[in-house]
Every structure is written in structure tokens, then in C-alpha cells.
């Protein structure tokens, strides 16, 4: 039989499946045969794949934006205004980039929640896996995603950007001992300005994307080393299917659905651009990005008096609580004592308490986010159907 010049997406023999995997750089990620249960839609919702697709969409939409964006205090706002109003389809590219970032925060969070609720970070009984480390890498990618989104938030240099970063870096400075020097290092001085913009820009376009790409590569490699997804542990190789075309087809469907969602949403949801950044006037209200609204509520409500000392809510809600939650989240696989047989099982009886506590915390975060969304002028609470009173914007 003559050897095929190219690998085939419709292999007819097991040998052709293997050849396709070996010959293709991207397909090399996958084993030649995969458990059929790994490809099911339901347990995973393919959220990890959707997150990666969004990351690629962000890389691709970020490139043309970098052609026009100028990272300087003088020109940043004007260049974003140009992208929005002058560059052909610039508004759409910016909307794709912005919505892709928001969706990536959502999908990576949902992916983490799914892995937690199904105990997919657990190893099979007597297993050789080290899935707990992949959970740690996943948590690191969640934080990298949040940082990517936050560093991108400053770049338009409008009022929304300036004050979100003022509050965010204010939280950093409330950390004990090293807070002030950390903030100065992050923003390159005592005031948010040119140095801050350059630092955030470099983090946004170089440091963090490379970090996510490397972590993702390691994440995928670990999935293979750990013998695939946890919910397929019980299959024992009975129901295996060739990776090509089965997994490629599914990935193509997830990719198309994700790209379609971002493309269409970007047409209908425009990206805001407020007035240029003005350190003298804080908008009323000034809000954090939606994924940090719950933290903004916590920093508002946790200034407490202990004896003669008044402890800043920024320290309690901005440093101590998030740090404690992050450490708990990272170390959870080692604290989880449920039996190994529950790995990859959705809502098993043995894990009902920890799943209930996890869901209660998620609900609390969602509730605080809703309260944050309802904040209006002078930090009052307003129903969505109520109109805000006219407030003076300048003295």
C-alpha cells in the first residue's frame, strides 16, 4: 500500500489513526485511542477546551489591536478611541477581545467548579496518578486569567480603567509590611501613570500570556500522564475509540460554538469607553470589574474596630480573605479525605458536605456580586429598574 502523503482526518485503519497522531504537531497531544466516556458532553461540558479556544481568540484579536494601540499616557486613550471609531471593524475586534476575556473568566471558573464538584482532582483507587498537581496548575491558570483581564482593564486609560486600577493597587498597598513597596513596584512609582501603563501592558501582552500558554501545555501533558479524565477511570479500556476523528470532531464543534458565540455577542454588545482618565475626579459610583465586585463588597464591609485600632477593610477583605481562600483552594486536594472511588463522580454521597460548602461559598460570591451590580451613586443600593438620581460630576 502506498504511504499517504498527509495524515487523514478519516482514517480507515488503526495504523492510519496512529500515523495521524504521530505526524501532526497538534494531534500529538492526544493518545491514538481515547476512552469514549472522556468525549461525552455532559460531565465536563468541555469547559476547559472552550477556555483554551477563548485564549487563542484573545491572542488573535489582540494582535491587530496591538498594531493600533499606543501604550503611553498621552496616546493610549486616543488610540483606543481610534480603534473604536476610525479603524475598519476596530470596534468589533475590540469587542471580541473584551468579551472573549470576560467569557474566559467565566469558563475557567466554571471549569474549576466542575472539577471540584465531580472530585476530578482525585486519583483512582491504587492509581499512579498525580491529579492534585494538575488542580494546582489549574488554580494558577485561573489567577493568571484574572490578572490578564485586570491588566487589560487599564489599557484604554479611561475613567473606568484608571479608578479600577487605583482601587486594585490600593488593596495591594494595604498588605502588611511589604504593601507599599509592592504597590510601588507594580505601578512603578507612587502615582498611577506612564510607568504603570508600560508595566501593565508588558504583563498583559508578554508575561501573562506566556505563563498561561506554558501552564496550559503542562496541564494537558498531565491529563495524559494521569491516564485521562477522572470520570473515565472505571472504563478499564473497554470502550475506547480512535482519537481521530472522534476527539478532533468534538474539538471542532466546541471551537466553532465558542467562536460563534464571541463573534455574535461582539456585534451586539459594544465596548464602553468613558471619559479620559482624570485623577482629580472619581466617577460616582466607581466600580471594580464584575468578577471583583464581590471583593469590592467585602473590602467595603470589613473595616472593623478592634479596641483602639481600626483595621482597614482593604486588609481584611482585600488581602487576608482572598489569600486564605486561595491557599485553601490550592491545597484542597490534600485536605479532601473522601474515598478514592468518588473521583470523577458527580455529587457523590461521600462528598456531599464539601460540595455543599463549596456551593454555599459560590452562592455567597454570586450574591455579593449582585449587590455590587446594584450599587449606585454614593454607594447606595438601587434596583435595576430604578433610575439613578442626577449627581454632579464635577465640583
Amino acid at each position, binding site marked *: 500500500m502506498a504511504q499517504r502523503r498527509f495524515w487523514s482526518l478519516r482514517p480507515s485503519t488503526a495504523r492510519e489513526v496512529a500515523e495521524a497522531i504521530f505526524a501532526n504537531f497538534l494531534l500529538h497531544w492526544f493518545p491514538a485511542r481515547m476512552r469514549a466516556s472522556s468525549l461525552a458532553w455532559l460531565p465536563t461540558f468541555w469547559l476547559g477546551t472552550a477556555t483554551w479556544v477563548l485564549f487563542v481568540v484573545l491572542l488573535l484579536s489582540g494582535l491587530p489591536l496591538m498594531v493600533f494601540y499606543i501604550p503611553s499616557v498621552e496616546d493610549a486613550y486616543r488610540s483606543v478611541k481610534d480603534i473604536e471609531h476610525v479603524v475598519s471593524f476596530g470596534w468589533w475586534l475590540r469587542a471580541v477581545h473584551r468579551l472573549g476575556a470576560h467569557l474566559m473568566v467565566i469558563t475557567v471558573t466554571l471549569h474549576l467548579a466542575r472539577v471540584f464538584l465531580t472530585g476530578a482532582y482525585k486519583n483512582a483507587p491504587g492509581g499512579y496518578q498525580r491529579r492534585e498537581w494538575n488542580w494546582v496548575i489549574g488554580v494558577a491558570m485561573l489567577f493568571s486569567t484574572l490578572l490578564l483581564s485586570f491588566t487589560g482593564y487599564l489599557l484604554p486609560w479611561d475613567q473606568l480603567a484608571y*479608578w479600577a486600577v*487605583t*482601587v486594585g*493597587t*490600593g*488593596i495591594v*498597598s*494595604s498588605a502588611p509590611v511589604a504593601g507599599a*513597596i509592592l504597590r*510601588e*513596584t507594580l505601578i*512603578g*512609582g*507612587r*502615582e498611577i*501613570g*506612564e*510607568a504603570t501603563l508600560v508595566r501593565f501592558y508588558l504583563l498583559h501582552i508578554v508575561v501573562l500570556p506566556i505563563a498561561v500558554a506554558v501552564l496550559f501545555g503542562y496541564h494537558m501533558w498531565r491529563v495524559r500522564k494521569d491516564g485521562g479524565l477522572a470520570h473515565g477511570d472505571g472504563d478499564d479500556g473497554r470502550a475506547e475509540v480512535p482519537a481521530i476523528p472522534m476527539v478532533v470532531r468534538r474539538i471542532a464543534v466546541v471551537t466553532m460554538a465558542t467562536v460563534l458565540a464571541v463573534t455574535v455577542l461582539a456585534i451586539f454588545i459594544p465596548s464602553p469607553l468613558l471619559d479620559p482618565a482624570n*485623577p*482629580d*475626579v*472619581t*466617577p*460616582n*459610583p*466607581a466600580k471594580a470589574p464584575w468578577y471583583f465586585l464581590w471583593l*469590592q463588597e467585602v*473590602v*467595603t*464591609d*470589613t*473595616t472593623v474596630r478592634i479596641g483602639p485600632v*481600626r*483595621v*482597614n*477593610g*482593604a486588609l481584611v477583605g*482585600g488581602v487576608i480573605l482572598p489569600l486564605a481562600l486561595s491557599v485553601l483552594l490550592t491545597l484542597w486536594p490534600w485536605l479532601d479525605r473522601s474515598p478514592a472511588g468518588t473521583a470523577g463522580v458527580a455529587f457523590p454521597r461521600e462528598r456531599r458536605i464539601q460540595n455543599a460548602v463549596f456551593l454555599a461559598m459560590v452562592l455567597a460570591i454570586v450574591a455579593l456580586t449582585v449587590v455590587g451590580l446594584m450599587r449606585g*451613586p*454614593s*454607594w*447606595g443600593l438601587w434596583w435595576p429598574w430604578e433610575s439613578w438620581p442626577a449627581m454632579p460630576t464635577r*465640583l
Partner: protein
Amino acid sequence: MEPDHPSQPGRRSVLVRLGTAAGAAALAAQGGIVARSLVANVSYDTPSRMKLGLPEAFPDGLTLVPDARLFVSRRGKRFRVLSAVCTHLGCTVRVEASLRPDPTDPDARKATQVFELACPCHGSRYRADGANLSGPAPRPLPAYRLILAPGDGQLVVDLDDEVDPGAELTVP
């Protein structure tokens, strides 16, 4: 080749350990150098000691100094300067006027206008003298030393010199 022995490491293993240690030390030093370079040595921020203008340029009451995030408070010939940066998370506070019942009027028919400073970010409120009244602000707004420049008589503030909130500069 001299064989390694647990109690007497051979030349090869000593060299490997030395090389590893030297490599690790070099990496740590280079990491430290890069981290140190990120801490700015020169500040292009607003200088901590600056001229605000002539005293007569400020009307009675509170005036926001643009780009400096400071309030100059004037009562006749007495001047104070107050930070406009909220002590909670660094937003710029704004002056808000509201009418309150006059405490000297027993029938509560008269109203008096009260000025307060409000932070739009998380709702902290301060009295006009900077004392924190409500909201998450942990401390009063700091007041800074104010002097008259010997040459041109302008008000000069020193942001590195925090003073008692009641301290005032009386201009002749």
C-alpha cells in the same frame, strides 16, 4: 577514576555539587537583580513639596487643587491643606453639601448647610476637617504642613510632613 564513597565524596561529585550550587546562586542573583531593577530609583511623580498658589487665589471654604489631589481649606486668614485621597483605597473624595436641622433651633425649622467629603468608591464620609465619619475609611484624611514661600509668598505644602488636623497657617 577515584570511586565515590558516602563518607568521602570523590572529585567528580564535589565538582557537580559546586557547579550546581554556583548555577543556582547565579540564577538567584540574576533574579534578584531583575527584581531590584523593577523598583524605581527616580520618581517622576508629583514632587512632595510644591507651590499651590497665592493665598488670595483661594476663596473661603474648600478648594480642590487640580492634579495634586489636595484640598485647601480657607477661613479668613487661616489656611489648612488636606489630602483628597480616601484612606480606604485611594479614590478622590468630593465635597458634598447637605441641609441639616439647625441644632440651635428648638423647633427644628431652620436648616444649616453642612459640608462633608464623600468618597464615590465605597461610600466613606468625612467631616470637612477630614475626620472619618462613616463607611470603610479607617483613618481621617491626613493634613500636611503649609508654609509661605519666602520669595513670592505662595502657599507651599510638604506632603512628607503630616501635621495635626487642627494645625492652621495664619497669613498676615
